[in-house]
């Protein structure tokens, strides 16, 4: 079947829903394609808040937020993006409130704000209350509110449609191809502009906060066309996942006064970040936790976690402002944060890298200003490089509303000015080839085992602490897994609701993301933000103040070509010189 829309949005999480709303305001026809029902998107799992310098609780300014974002990103953040963001997010938060989002409130009835890791006043002097929140389910409320507004606007949704291909020819995007789960039918969507907002790919790791559906599909499809993925080496581990499970425990828990303790009860963050202690940025806290564990001061049977201590906080705070994580601890660990210490460990959480875009969301095809006409991206899928080498807590929800909105506006503006481009001759050919290939293998290999080996080896070799030899080993492991993937078993011949075919397809996408990440990390011989190498222990601004652009070598399978892109070291009105990152 064939469809035609001026603007197509892929993904119905926060970025996709915001983009769809704004594209629709641009007076063009819009449809949103999602592999889930929109309310199932992973934006709903974000807990702690959305940072904006509203100043409702303590004095704050967008410049301070911009500085924290740039410093938090270890100066790899593009400062023009940080400036646009820090200003825009203030309006965007008010806009969410005007859409009815039920924020928690101050005694004066304003949007409540609390402390968060790396949020400071006066350029690093002390912690500041910047995170706007709705209890500890802020992402859930953003997702619900944006979906509600799309229902109000009558946005057309194609739910449970898995995008299998992007139609790009001669540097121009012409639409997408998608598999409809309910019928097994392959659809062609012809479009003037396409916005990619399908989220991250945390499922390449063994321990992750990410949903099972976060498999990097569109990043991989982009990469398979010989187009670059930017800064893939920068992958954030959230310091506090529930031990072994990886389920997110919001940073709001530390914002409200929670304290990390090792096996002897010591508040160890005092040693690593004396100024802001438990409220240091995520890369620093994650490394501090792993250091404690490696030095034998972990807790639990395997001594591979540390505790988060809330027991000194009033019960009303724990059960009120932190109700979600209280429920998670009780459900999954049988522990009550009101009186028990809760064991946590770092969990794979957020991709700072992804499909490179400019400030308007336009997808870039190289590091020298080339772009793909008609193709936009936003949210975790994209890399406008707001987050640089390490994302500040709350800036993911901010990113998706600010840059989702911009992508929607500019995609619609573009679509109004152009005619529909011609479709390729046989738009479904590559999708059909992929499906035929997956079904015609020898069937020796169980996809679940390949996936498990990928997840464990990525965790071990390209995790929080990295070194050259481990990553070289990982390059070989991924080559072997990809070769076994050629013989993967797809036993279910049915067309309707073939969830087996989808899982196998997603595994192929994940292997590509893992390949690009490993090559990018091996190539960067320094330590910066979330990328920490034992064999290159310091930050090297002389050689590495630049973005990585990883390209799949279409002629040599398994080989990755590396290019670079300059970092924007100035904003429009402010610029922050790189300096040592101490907290």
């Amino acid at each position, binding site marked *: 079947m064939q469809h035609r829309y001026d603007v197509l949005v892929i993904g119905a999480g926060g970025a996709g829903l915001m983009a769809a709303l704004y594209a629709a305001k641009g007076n063009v026809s819009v449809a949103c394609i999602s592999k889930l029902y929109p309310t199932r998107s992973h934006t709903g799992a974000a807990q702690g808040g959305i940072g904006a310098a509203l100043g409702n609780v303590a004095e704050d300014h967008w410049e301070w937020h911009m500085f924290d974002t740039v410093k938090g990103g270890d100066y790899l953040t593009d400062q023009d993006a940080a400036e646009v963001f820090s200003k825009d997010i203030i309006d965007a938060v008010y806009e969410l409130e005007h859409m009815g989002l039920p924020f928690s409130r101050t005694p004066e009835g304003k949007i409540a704000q609390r402390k968060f890791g790396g949020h400071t006043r006066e350029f690093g002097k002390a912690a500041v209350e910047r995170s706007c929140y709705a209890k500890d389910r802020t992402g859930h409320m953003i997702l619900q509110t944006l979906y509600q507004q799309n229902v109000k606007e009558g946005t057309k949704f194609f739910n449970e449609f898995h995008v299998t291909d992007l139609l790009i020819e001669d540097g121009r995007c012409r639409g997408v191809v998608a598999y409809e789960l309910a019928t097994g039918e392959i659809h062609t969507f012809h479009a003037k502009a396409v916005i990619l907002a399908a989220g991250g790919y945390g499922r390449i790791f063994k321990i992750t906060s990410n949903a099972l559906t976060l498999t990097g599909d569109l990043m991989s499809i982009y990469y398979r066309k010989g187009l670059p993925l930017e800064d893939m080496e920068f992958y954030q581990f959230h310091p506090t996942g529930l031990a072994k*499970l990886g389920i997110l425990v919001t940073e709001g828990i530390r914002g409200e006064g929670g304290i990390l303790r090792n096996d002897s009860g010591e508040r160890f963050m005092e040693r690593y970040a004396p100024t802001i202690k438990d409220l240091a940025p995520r890369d620093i806290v994650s490394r501090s936790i792993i250091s404690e564990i490696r030095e034998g001061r972990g807790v639990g049977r395997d001594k591979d976690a540390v505790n988060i201590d809330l027991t000194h906080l009033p019960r009303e705070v724990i059960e009120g402002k932190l109700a979600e994580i209280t429920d998670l601890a009780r459900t999954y660990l049988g522990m009550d944060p009101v009186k028990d210490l809760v064991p946590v460990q770092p969990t794979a959480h957020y991709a700072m890298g992804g499909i490179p875009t400019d400030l308007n969301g336009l997808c870039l095809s190289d590091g020298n200003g080339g772009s793909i006409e008609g193709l936009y991206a936003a949210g975790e899928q994209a890399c406008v490089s707001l987050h640089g080498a390490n994302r500040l807590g709350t800036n993911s929800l901010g990113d998706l509303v600010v840059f989702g909105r911009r992508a929607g506006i500019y995609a619609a503006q573009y679509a109004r000015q152009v005619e529909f481009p011609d479709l390729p001759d046989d738009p479904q050919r590559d999708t059909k080839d992929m499906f035929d290939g997956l079904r015609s293998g020898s069937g020796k290999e169980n996809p679940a085992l390949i996936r498990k080996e990928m997840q464990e080896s990525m965790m071990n070799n390209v995790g929080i602490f990295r070194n050259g030899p481990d990553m070289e080993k990982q390059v070989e492991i991924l080559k072997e897994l990809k070769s076994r993937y050629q013989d993967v078993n797809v036993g279910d011949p049915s067309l309707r609701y073939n969830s087996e075919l989808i899982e196998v397809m997603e595994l192929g996408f994940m292997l590509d993301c893992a390949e690009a990440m490993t090559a990018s990390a091996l190539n960067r011989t320094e330590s910066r933000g979330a990328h920490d190498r034992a064999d290159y222990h310091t930050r090297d601004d002389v050689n590495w103040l630049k973005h990585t652009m990883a390209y799949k070598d279409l002629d040599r399978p398994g080989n990755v070509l590396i290019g670079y892109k300059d970092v924007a070291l100035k904003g429009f009105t402010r610029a922050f010189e790189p300096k040592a990152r101490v907290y």
Partner: protein
Amino acid sequence: MTQTQHETSTAPAAAQQALPMLHIKVKILRFDPEKDRKAHWETYAIDAQAGDRVLDVINEVKWYHDHSLTFRRSCMHGICGSDAMLINGRNRLACKTLVRDVAKDGGTITVEPIRGLKVEKDLLVDMEPFFDSYKAIMPYFINESPAPAAERIQSEEEAERMAQSSNCILCACCTTSCPIFWVNGSYLGPASIVQAHRFIFDSRDEATQQRLNIMNQNTGVWRCRTAYNCTEACPRDIPITQLIEEVKRAVMYQQA
């Protein structure tokens, strides 16, 4: 199978590793419309840890026993609402139900699709009627007055009025446990009434009267017979029956 069990990405929690291994059977209602004329049970023997989620067990079946098993799942921790199913006869989220709470060693866990919606394949049902009901109650904030430059002021008490209803994740556990909904699919059902409650009791919203009118129709709130199934089924402990009663009272007195 199951040596692989403990190494999967969803390994159980540290505190639970000392818990015993349970040898259980999982009995799943299977239906593939391309092959089957009617649904049939299939049973799988699984070794599970007591702290595993039922979803871990179902994934285990799919990944190592029968790849064709079809169900919805996503977040794995009770926030996306994808994996509502009937577990031992009760509506629950498979990712929020621990094995130890539904089976003893040597016991059987039964898993079926939620009731009242058409089964498309195995545990996966047609969700469209559910979302159609949701859309029918105008589930969006309405305030046509010019917005202020900053936020609309709302007191902490007024914000707290929405805390329970806005906690809903639209998993459909409540609506598909409601006997009235099973008998009469045109009843909007508990989930939609909870959504209506969320806006009716929002101090900033201006469409209270329109929503009360929808709730007053014969598909609305008066169909509720206070069976409490919805409240028992809710995986997020929303006191749904109480919220429905509050909406009934608001309709009766025509004010929120």
